[in-house]
């Protein structure tokens, strides 16, 4: 299984190095959204309460993770378009690769790409929203756990729709509701990481992200075989 995981990951990353779709198209897309959010929300608005932070800074974590989600949808769609467009799913089935290995390989490749995107988007968010970072360790853990959760769940549902002609429009419909807990948990944990807000238990939210990731790791490894069979 690990061999197949590595094989798929290396192949997908090699394709990305050649085509640069994620870095040349999806990353600029994410940056554009961040900038548009910055333009749409006035920096003069101030949150009521003791902190009196600008609104844009207060909602920066949510906007950042929303941008990541939209970018992830594109990356996931791209990852399975590679397999579905020229019958490669059939070829993978005929090769007899371990379905769990294929699942983990695809998810790992998307994770690597998404972490790269998030790193650049993070700097972009810092520039646009100007939010400080109070707890960098919690922020790093949040980014990692949320990304893994997004890619594991997203890979599973993208595979579900891979063989369908309507997959491009179906995947967001399937994935976005499922990823609502990730959006919530990542936003809350990031808020704690940025502002050290005593009212927000950041590590607890990070724990939720870890449970979500573990859940979809198990479900994905079990369900990917039948999904690959039926796609």
């Amino acid at each position, binding site marked *: 299984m690990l*061999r*197949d995981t590595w*094989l798929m990951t290396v*192949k997908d990353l*090699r*394709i990305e190095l*050649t*085509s640069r779709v994620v870095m040349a198209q999806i990353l600029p897309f994410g940056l554009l959204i961040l900038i548009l959010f910055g333009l749409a929300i006035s920096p003069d608005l101030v949150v009521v309460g003791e902190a009196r932070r600008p609104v844009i800074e207060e909602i920066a974590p949510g906007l950042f993770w929303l941008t990541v989600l939209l970018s992830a949808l594109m990356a996931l769609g791209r990852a399975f378009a*590679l397999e579905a*467009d*020229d*019958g*490669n799913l*059939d*070829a*993978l*089935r*005929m*090769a*007899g*690769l371990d379905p769990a290995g294929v699942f983990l390989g695809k998810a790992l490749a998307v994770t690597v790409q998404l972490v790269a995107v998030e790193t650049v988007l993070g700097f972009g968010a810092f520039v646009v929203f100007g939010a400080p970072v109070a707890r960098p360790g919690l922020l790093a853990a949040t980014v990692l756990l949320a990304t893994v959760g997004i890619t594991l769940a997203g890979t599973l549902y993208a595979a579900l729709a891979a063989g369908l002609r309507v997959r491009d429009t179906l995947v967001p419909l399937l994935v976005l509701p499922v990823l609502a807990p990730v959006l919530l948990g990542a936003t809350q944990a990031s808020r704690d990481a940025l502002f050290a807000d005593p009212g927000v238990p950041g590590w607890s939210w990070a724990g939720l992200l870890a449970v979500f990731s573990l859940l979809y790791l198990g479900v994905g490894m079990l369900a990917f075989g039948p999904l690959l*069979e039926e796609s």
Partner: protein
Amino acid sequence: MGPVSDGDTTPAGPLDAGQPGRTVVIQLRQAISLIERFPALAGVDLTVSEGEIILLRGPNGAGKSTLLRLCAGLAPLNGGRGEVLGHDLSSRRERRELRRQTGLLAHATFLYDELTVEENLMFWARANRLDEASVEPVLDRLALANRLRHVRVANLSAGQRRRASLAVLVCRRPRLWLLDEPHAGLDVNGRDFVDGLIKHAVAFGGTVLLASHDFDRAAEIATRTVIVAGGQVQETDPSARADIPEGRMARRSASAAPPPRWGREPDDAPPSDPAAGSPLVGRPPRSEGSGARLTGRAGASSNPAPAPLRPSRAVAPEPVGSEADRSPSVGAGPQDAGADGAPPKAPVVEAGPGSRWRGRRRAAAESG
């Protein structure tokens, strides 16, 4: 034969015994395969023995491609019964095992556009747990070793893509070759190569099903023609099965089917001993002490050992003139397999009056 898949309501008779003395590779009895709710195959009966080259003919949408996919273990068997290479098609687990032993050349190329030809071949060789060293001879034989090796598949012409796809298929070294329009998009060199490859594969123990609209060319190499229409086998040539030489053609006709080379004549000096292996088909030749499988597991058999084929239930050859000889399925036909062991010529089905296919009876023409 395991239980029939869920939803099977079609009474299916016992599987055909196949040709006496010959291993049966494909046995389908009232096989039904659905694409969504459409019965792409609506009760197919077909028996194919080892060493046959079966030409599937029929109009577009007749079910030829689905039949090939069913035999590859990709399309589901929704009704009836079926065994391919000894694997029960109604069992999902056995279909997975079957897939490793078959090679499908489909309309899709099974290639990644963003990777080069070499990268594609290396990936699929690793995915199929093949020896990396087996890629180089294939690149060489298909004239992909030089200029095209490092070209991205997206930049290839349609014919070159087809050639690269064929290279991946050859790397798999399947036992059952399922070729969907193998001549499509190829120039004369390519078509000649495909023909040579088919003959060579059969000479080394393979069995071939090909669907082709290039009838004249395909009929030259086929040992039997099967007409598919409306998701069913309408007609099969009753005389062709006796044309296949006894025993494995691999042992006797290898010298008559040298390994083909793209754009050139076949090798002048084919392997005189088939057991020595072919550079293209059959069991891959392993280098001495080669543990260089890509599994990373020492000693692991990465290319799955072929499942033992079930011998035909009628293993004893019937005496000439027996009932079996007169039966439509094993009828005595012209024995035009040459004494040199060359692949037998294709007897062509004469479709019935009013048929939309214009058949020709090669045997009659040749005798005339």
